[in-house]
């Protein structure tokens, strides 16, 4: 990668982090209701809230200061490597965010790994047997799975595998077995999308000139498939994997709530609802950074494996 490209990416990352953290910072202030009362309500289920308490709590964290001053304070700390203190727990934000991102990375990473492996297998079979019964079955199944939302699928799987069969735990995140159902739920929709992409990519590769040339040179069908068709047919998949990974980092809230998993989506969601601004900002910054990093790595791999992208980038 050229220096200019790398610089563009770093600046892009910085801009994404700043913009997203500012957007998250604003949410509690533009939402109806008092963010200070939301924080206090998260600490204790309280109805009548003493105004003096609300004022004292707000003053402790400077919550009635001008918004830009508050954001500037956070930014100053952030550049010194300090994500601040949670308004609700009083603990360093890093102590909350880092364990959560660890959980989410392992969950999202495993789900995508499963999705990639399964979709390659299904997509290749569907493409190679295009219009045959395996293709029809796989295509129908993948289209059907796209339509099933996670909040419907998760309880169904819990009912089957945890309640009826007693094979797997219904919730938690403390053993490999406890990861199976959440990974399954998170991977089924990407499997559908990825399979469709792989099938389409493989079909295009099968019709490409270099594959026809390889066949003309007398290369066997299997070797042609492995050496020429699959590597090129999978190129669209990697871009999708990057996008899905970025989405899962903060967007697996439903699965995390249903399976009681202390991940990033739940942390950010709760922090926004409870107006715990530093935690929401810290969470979003880390999630965005991981997402940009992941898509950057995938982009790099994409460039290495696809000469057309490499050449296009160097010309641009």
């Amino acid at each position, binding site marked *: 990668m050229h220096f200019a490209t790398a610089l563009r990416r770093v600046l892009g990352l910085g801009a994404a982090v700043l913009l997203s953290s500012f957007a998250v910072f604003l949410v509690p202030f533009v*939402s*109806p*209701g*008092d963010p200070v*009362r*939301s924080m*206090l*309500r*998260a*600490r*204790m*289920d*309280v*109805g*009548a809230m*003493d105004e003096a*308490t609300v004022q*004292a*709590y707000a003053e*402790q964290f400077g919550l009635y200061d001008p918004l830009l001053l508050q954001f500037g304070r956070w930014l100053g700390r952030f550049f010194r490597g300090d994500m601040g203190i949670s308004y*609700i*727990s*009083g*603990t360093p934000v890093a102590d*909350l965010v880092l*364990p*959560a991102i660890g959980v989410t990375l392992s969950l999202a990473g495993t789900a995508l790994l499963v999705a990639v492996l399964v979709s390659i297998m299904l997509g290749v079979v569907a493409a190679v047997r295009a219009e045959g019964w395996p293709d029809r079955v796989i295509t129908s199944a993948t289209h059907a799975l796209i339509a099933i939302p996670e909040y419907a699928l998760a*309880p169904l799987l*819990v009912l089957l595998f*945890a*309640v009826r069969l*007693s094979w797997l*735990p*219904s*919730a*938690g*995140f*403390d053993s490999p077995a406890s990861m199976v159902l959440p990974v399954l739920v998170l991977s089924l929709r990407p499997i559908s999308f990825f399979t469709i992409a792989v099938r389409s990519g493989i079909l295009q590769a099968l019709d490409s000139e270099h594959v026809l040339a390889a066949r003309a040179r007398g290369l066997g069908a299997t070797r042609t498939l492995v050496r020429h068709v699959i590597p090129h047919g999978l190129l669209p998949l990697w871009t999708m994997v990057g996008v899905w990974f970025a989405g899962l980092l903060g967007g697996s809230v439903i699965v995390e*709530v*249903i*399976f*009681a998993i*202390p991940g990033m989506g*739940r*942390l950010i969601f*709760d922090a926004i609802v*409870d107006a715990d601004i530093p935690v929401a900002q810290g969470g979003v910054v880390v999630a965005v950074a991981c997402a940009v990093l992941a898509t950057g790595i995938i982009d790099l791999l994409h460039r290495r494996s696809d000469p057309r992208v490499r050449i296009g980038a160097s010309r641009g």
Partner: protein
Amino acid sequence: MNLGRLSATAVFAATALALTACSASTPSPTSAPSVDREARAVVANFRAPVSNWALESDDAYVLSIAGCLETLVKYDSTTQNIEPMLAESWKQSSDTAWDFTLRQNVKFQDGTALDAKAAAASLNHVLKATAPARAVNPKTISKVSAVDADTLRVTTPAADPLLPYRMASVNAGILAPAAYGADGIDPFGHCTGPFIPVSEKAGQSLSLDRNVNYWGGDVQLAGGEIRYITEGPTRATQVQTGEADISMSIPATSLATLEADNSVKVLKADSPRTATLYLNNSRAPFDNLKLRQAATMALDLPAIAASVYEGAAQPATGPFAPSESWANPDLQVPQVNLEEAKKLVADSGYQQDKPLEIIAITERAEFAAVGAIIQEQFKQIGLQANVVTKSYGSVEPEVLAGNYDMILSQRNRMIDIADPIGFLQSDYTCDGGYNLSHYCNKDFDALIEKALPKTDQATRHDLYRQAGDVLAADAANVWLVNEQAIDALGSTVQGYVQDPLTRYVLTKDLAKTK
């Protein structure tokens, strides 16, 4: 083989079979399942600690149900009385001072002794919090000090006959001095309870071991685990699969499934929460008593309880649950009387020019359905209403300012102390800080003023009852259903006493059978 030997053999076999059958069908006393001393109980709790174990926050509930945190006294929800805990006795030494005599030979789990100085330091820490607890705060307690090694004096700004109830609040829990560090509160090894916290999986669970030196005697379980599962259906599933032994606060939607499961025992008790249709008494149209009465008569409360709550709530008779000792036992569930309700609407002189608004708060998903039923039933008496769903936080300022018609909400009457005085004061007196319905009746206020200094429980409860009757007569709100506290237990759990105030779960007597 001859016939004689054959018949003798048959008689012997038959007798043996009969005896075997008898012994199988009549269990001997020794065949009763015995307590498993090595067992650990898993509790699926609806709360997760979020405040770094600050005792002034709801994290104190988690430590209390975990059998770690203890208070000077405890509230027994069965007898509705205050019982000894870390203090063996207490007395009011002056109008504004209460002396608690600590139990002898109690040690914190780190081996240090509980004395009055340590207890005072613990309570003073809670009093100094920026956002103090509901029950224990500088407005209710002015000073806590050690009189001598065994005597703790709690001074109140004014005479407070309910001070022992405050001391039973989980926020008044006592931890060892070493628990209070610069980085916050560390309960590990610093409680006095039957279970010692040994590890925590952040955001997931707290594990505990038996406290072999517990002051209260032998602890049955070897340990326990409190899982933080905020999603109700997931808690229900956990007890069904056997992953949890006790699941707290089961949602109505899971009730039928669990009741049909033979391996699960479902416990229900009146909770101190009544789902209420708050009527804005301060402005038209509900500043009119006749219209409020009409609203009460129009609603079919048993139908709401049966349909929306699926049996997890009982139709309300008034502002209190019937099981509460201050509830008027003569109050009945209001009967639907559409004709009378229509007449009251006509008599009120109300001419509707635009639909009224019912706010259903999103924090309680069922309120949207309740709102839809109310909307339909109001139509029958000629009242048009729209239901809007909003988060409570977003509407609270407008509701407190009196800019609304109706809001569906619910309140915990005993959220600060196990007595409704705080609720009655804040929610229904003219100057109440949380008077959502903007209700004001000097007679009601006088009854509360009269109840405040009463030390005799029966007298106080009688005054609450009268106050409740005033609210019902004024149709201040429509009290819809009393919600039930629902817990579910696995089949091997023994010695569990359901606490509707969700303070106690892992106790020394809780056990599992083999």
